[in-house]
């Protein structure tokens, strides 16, 4: 199986968004090769197993796909869709890149936010989008997440957040960096109000997002095998000139070093998160 065959459906799964299959089905069902066990899996089968292989490999997943199995059907109300990117530095090539990414990912920006119910437990939910410049954090991502925490504080709701990020969005310079402080401030106010925040770290969660709201949850869960870290592995290798230990910067590595509460496979996530929400329910 060639690399193209691997990439094509992978892109579709990651950026295609909606959970329905494309209308014009090829005569032979589309499939994908698992990069872990190298077995061929039908895309339809992959969808039924929440984008996981029988070997345990978790494929990256679009925010909308994730939403479709995390939130109770019809419970999601999207918020803050009016927050638009402004290219604050007029950075060379950025406007074009943003527009191209919006077309290919079918998302306006790197995160979707809203209110939802998870097994009937109401919460605020954010899900970052890997197909949108790998979930990099610019002002829109920072603003939407900040607003979500402010909304959750005002309405006394827990927040559940799925992170995926390559880090800060270079093209927005310091405006991007400052989103780390801004989101952290909103998380802190939510926390000081006695409210629950659960994060789920998915592949990859790195850089400025790791060094802000990803690591600020009361309970931090992670998907098996996800890359989780601060500095990029290649950069570390180049600066230290040491070979990295096996499994470096994986969810399992973070668990071993005490920075993650539990690793939860995707098919169990809704049940586990609902149980956590139940134990933190306010009133009665």
């Amino acid at each position, binding site marked *: 199986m060639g690399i193209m065959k691997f990439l094509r459906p992978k892109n579709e799964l990651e950026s295609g968004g909606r959970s329905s299959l494309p209308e014009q089905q090829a005569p032979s069902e589309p499939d994908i090769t698992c990069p872990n066990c190298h077995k061929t899996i039908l895309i339809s089968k992959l969808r039924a197993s929440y984008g996981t292989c029988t070997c345990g490999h978790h494929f990256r997943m679009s925010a909308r796909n994730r939403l479709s199995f995390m939130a109770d059907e019809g419970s999601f109300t999207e918020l803050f869709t009016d927050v638009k990117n402004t290219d604050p530095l007029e950075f060379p090539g950025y406007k074009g890149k943003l527009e191209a990414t919006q077309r290919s990912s079918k998302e306006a920006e790197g995160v979707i936010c809203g209110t939802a119910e998870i097994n009937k437990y109401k919460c605020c939910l954010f899900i970052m989008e890997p197909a949108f410049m790998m979930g990099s954090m610019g002002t829109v991502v920072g603003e939407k997440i900040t607003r979500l925490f402010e909304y959750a504080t005002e309405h006394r709701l827990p927040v559940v957040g799925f992170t995926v990020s390559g880090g800060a969005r270079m093209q927005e310079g310091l405006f991007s960096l*400052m989103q*780390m*402080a801004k989101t952290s401030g909103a998380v802190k106010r939510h926390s000081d109000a006695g409210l629950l925040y659960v994060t789920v770290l998915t592949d990859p969660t790195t850089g*400025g997002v790791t060094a802000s709201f990803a690591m600020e949850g009361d309970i931090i869960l992670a998907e098996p095998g996800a890359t989780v870290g601060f500095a990029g592995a290649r950069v570390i290798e180049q600066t230290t000139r040491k070979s990295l230990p096996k499994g470096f910067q994986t969810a399992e590595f973070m668990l071993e070093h005490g920075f993650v509460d539990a690793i939860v496979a995707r098919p169990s996530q809704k049940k586990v998160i609902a149980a956590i929400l139940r134990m933190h329910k306010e009133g009665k």
Partner: protein
Amino acid sequence: MSITAYDRVKTARDIRRPTAANYIRSMFLDFIELHGDRSYADDRAIMGGIARIGDMPVTVIGIEKGQNTKDRILHSFGAPNPEGYRKALRLMKQAEKFHRPVVCFVDTSGAYCGIGAEERGQGQAIAENLMEMMTLKTPVISLVIGEGGSGGALALSVANKVWMMENAIYSVISPEGCASILWKDADRAAEAADVLKLTAQDSLYNGIIDEVISEENLGTEAFYFALRDKIEMTLRELSAMTMEELLDQRYEHFRKIGRPLV
């Protein structure tokens, strides 16, 4: 000829420039250095302690690059490890307990990049500082004196007043790193420095910082005297605010950045 952004980058990194230790020892009285994060180690990339400014006790914390080659190795070239950020947070919490203001001096190319730093949770350490500094119940001033390198600098810069020295830089990524990502050519760092808007003047214009401090007579007695007076006066102004005003002011400083105009 005007000064380019990359000229500022080179000046900010100049090893002859005063480091945090120079600022601390020249402006504060009775400085007593306090070591360690009480959990793992003492990170020499960050120095902190208690001192006086006039009659006022303060907690001072600085990212220290070191004074000479040997010293610079000892201080990891001013690249803090997680235990450095945790030491800083411990001292800030102590300042809160004893109602002392906090003054931070920021000068780093970035948080330390290494296997141990990741094992000990560099990301988590920075995140915790961002969160805790935002609600620290005492006035905080941060001054970027040289390099303000990304998250590693921000971790000591969640303050009521953020100032930069005239030739300091503050950036999400180094101009070399930016150039190699953008154009696959680290040699185009000067162009990258320009587009990143990383100078003190750009940061002020963009509403990221509150003030640019003149470098006239940098490192002289007169320079430190004037800066000390400015710090003292500002701390008195901040101390006169109610706690709610103080914390709202700090929150709003960051809250407004990247908030779209309606």
